């Protein structure tokens, strides 16, 4: 009998870290010094916040560097940065610092912006809790996916990789290890949050499960 999959959600309240940046140098200082929940908020959580709308850049750093500092080259490098390649926040932070540091090293003049346009490093206090929804079969999974919130989808598809330090999301892991469905696991793990918003991801997962049930 397969162990059931328990659905969780993550709900966060945002607070100010005390760091802010008004040019590239202070951005670099902030990247080095802020708590890891700030890196999480601006790099990963931005995917949740913007999932329903089309904007040019999906993470907060890229948006600020491009849209406020007008550093288009660095903005593009930061936009192409994929946080989902990393299973540890410290590694994602190190790579971010590497990108910005290299650019700062090659730049002679740094535009400084006003306080109102500064980049405020925000942190997030995340509360993770079970929803009381558990599934053991594909039809049950289908029903659950239909009703869970975007936050729960985000937690399982994106955030679980960080929390569990695994390259694949925990739902795909469960499909592979408990239901012996490696193909469905790979299919779901491959759905990109950059290509689809969370509602579209939900629909694609349901379609994939429906195909597997057939």
């Amino acid at each position, binding site marked *: 009998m397969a162990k059931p999959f328990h659905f969780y959600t993550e709900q966060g*309240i945002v607070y100010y870290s005390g760091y802010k940046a008004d040019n590239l140098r202070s951005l670099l200082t902030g990247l080095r010094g802020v708590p890891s929940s700030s890196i999480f908020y601006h790099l990963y959580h931005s995917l949740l916040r913007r999932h329903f709308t089309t904007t040019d850049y999906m993470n907060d750093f890229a948006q600020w560097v491009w849209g406020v500092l007008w550093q288009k080259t660095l903005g593009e490098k930061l936009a192409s940065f994929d946080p989902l390649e990393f299973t540890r926040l410290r590694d994602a932070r190190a790579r971010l610092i590497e990108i910005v540091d290299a650019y700062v090293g090659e730049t002679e003049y740094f535009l400084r912006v006003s306080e109102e346009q500064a980049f405020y490093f925000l942190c997030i206090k995340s509360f*993770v*809790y079970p*929803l009381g929804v558990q599934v053991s079969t594909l039809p049950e999974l289908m029903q659950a996916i239909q009703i869970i919130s975007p936050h729960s989808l985000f937690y399982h598809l994106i955030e679980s990789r960080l929390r569990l330090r695994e390259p694949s999301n925990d739902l795909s892991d469960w499909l592979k290890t408990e239901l012996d469905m490696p193909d469905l696991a790979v299919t779901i793990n491959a759905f990109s949050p950059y290509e689809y918003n969370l509602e579209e991801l939900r629909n694609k997962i349901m379609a994939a499960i429906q195909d597997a049930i057939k």
Partner: protein
Amino acid sequence: MPSSNNKHHLKDYAPIVTAGVINEIEELARLLGPAKIVNVNSTKEGGGVAEILGWFIPILEDLGMTVEWKVITGNTEFFTITKKFHNALHGQPEEFTQEMFDSYLDNVGKNAPPIPDDADFVVIHDPQPVAMIAQYPNRSNRWAWRCHIDLSEADLRVWGFLRPFVERYDGAVFHLPQYTKNLMSPQFILPPAIDPLAPKNEELTDDEVTAILYRLGVPRDKRIILQVARFDRLKDPFGAIRAFKLVRSWYDCRLILAGGSATDDPEGQAVLAEITDMAGDDPDIHILNLPPDSHREINALQRAAAVVIQNSRREGFGLTVTEAMWKAKPVVGTDIGGIRHQIIHGTSGFLIHSVEGLAYRIRQLFGNPEMARRFGIQAREYVRNNLLVPHHIRRWLLVFHSLKQKGNDDLITLPPHEITE
């Protein structure tokens, strides 16, 4: 206790934000337990704070909390002083004397409502009651100061006077990061929200909109540019009129400036007189001084508008922008404060920096109705995902959880739900 107008339960919002979102909020409340929460502000009606508390409190009660809403009273002198605080905290020049600061403290000492010992959480709204905390040096409950205004250019004397009181709170809550200050206690970022089921935001038929506008004396024969705001210099209605006249040289249209005064806002009448004089006999400019409960009228005006503008010089958050976005209207607003955090420039509206810019973007929307329609759809979706009542409730529950928490961890696992067969 001031009465609230909301007759809705959290579950009533499920068709709008989905049942999954509602279930999560209910679970968050269950994990907090049956807390007693006391809110204190300065006025029963008029203004955004009273409007928010009107729906906030019944829903928290629905979730099992015990909630009280108390109001700090005062004479005309007290509210004149606190209005000056409000202006000065927004960066406007104001004169103060030591007697005024003493008078403020004296009034708070005499008129602050008592806080029961068994309250778990106390939420103090804006500067009027902020000094109340000094009366409870041995408290065991958790106090949060909720700031609804823009402190980024606060007058140093006034902030210097209020800050020692704010520092005593267990946490401060701001709309935006730009409004935070150097404080030792946590500064939570919590934008306000609108109620999609309230008379101000509920769906209206086109016939209902027409009937309400007819009653207000506004024809629907031309495209309408609308600004909804208190008659206050910080909302720059004068600039709105100048921009309208520029647009009218290109497109035949009307401008509506709809506003009123909150009970704690003494200078609104003077501004109203000035803009009435500026508008003169122009038949295409309508200045509507509406009573505080004109929710359906505002709703109808927003739905009738082709473009909604917010030409504020200072804006705490801009819930009138949120309301217009919820009605799928393209909004053109100044690139400040909460407006720039709501409008995604070029995607759900435009952010401008001048009267000429305001006119230019209105013309652009008039000239491209398909773009205006797309902007409106994106605007509504942004509000649906972020700025409605359920999201506000969720964020406050998280603040309460945070205030209750021991330690400073940023990742907290809450106790598991008992799974019943």
